[in-house]
């Protein structure tokens, strides 16, 4: 099965890259953008069809490597 893992900075953590993108959008004249926070997306293919097992594997992957939980949080979504 296929999954998407989203890793984003915790809201209390300053995101200078997001701020720079926000500034660039403003200077391009893109209207109505209040703020931008940048994150990461991982598309993962798993060799199981068991959703519970897949979720446990991905949680493990997030805790061990994909996210640094000091500054980031993660969300797991199943696609397709």
């Amino acid at each position, binding site marked *: 099965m296929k999954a998407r893992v989203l890793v984003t900075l915790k809201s209390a*953590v300053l995101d*200078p890259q997001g701020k720079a993108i926000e500034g660039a959008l403003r200077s391009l004249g893109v209207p109505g953008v209040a703020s931008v926070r940048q994150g990461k997306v991982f598309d993962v293919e798993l060799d199981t069809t068991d959703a519970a097992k897949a979720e446990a594997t991905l949680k493990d992957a997030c805790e061990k490597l994909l996210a*640094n939980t*000091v*500054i980031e949080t993660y969300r797991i979504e199943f696609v397709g």
Partner: protein
Amino acid sequence: MKSAVLVFPGSNREGDVARALELVTGVKPTLVWHADTSLPAGTDLVVLPGGFSYGDYLRCGAIAARAAIMDAVRAHAARGGLVLGICNGFQILCESGLLPGVLVRNARLRFICREALLKVERNDTPFTRRYAKGAVVRYPVAHGEGNYTADADTLKRLEDDGRVVFRYVMADGRRDDTQVLNGAANSIAGIVSEKLNVLGLMPHPENHVDPLVGPTDGRALFESIVGALERA
């Protein structure tokens, strides 16, 4: 004194630190490849050098922190062995959990390559015993992600336990948390572990050891390590 300098794909300061160690201790360190599973027998000091391990992919130091050799480094640290992480080495130590917190993108997003002024907050660690307490020293910095961050509880614990060893200071030696070159919390440039045997710092003491290239403020850090090991 036996030192081991770890080499990850993308490390690039291993030569600088090996040269500094040989200059100060008279002994060539052993370079240890990241895929090895053990350190040379009798290793006193492990150095994680600067560079861009794994091209800074995912997060700086994240992949190197999970390398095979790191289990041996953790065991060495648990035994009280000395570990020094410089720049990318500091990032790897944070990612591996040997030191708390994390180094994120510099606050003003620029790569900073220049000399920094640092205050030596304590001289009772194995890494700083040859400095005067409160001394202001010059080390070069060269990093894009040196902005030290940790949650409020961790920062408080570090401060309460006096684990901040190096702090960025202004030209007059004062600390100004609003003007830190990279935005680091509490002007933190380097911290030690609880048992004082693991030091991580962003600036490069190994590049200020030879009068031929400039100041030699970094020499005392390596001399401190020699002294600490002789005493042990």
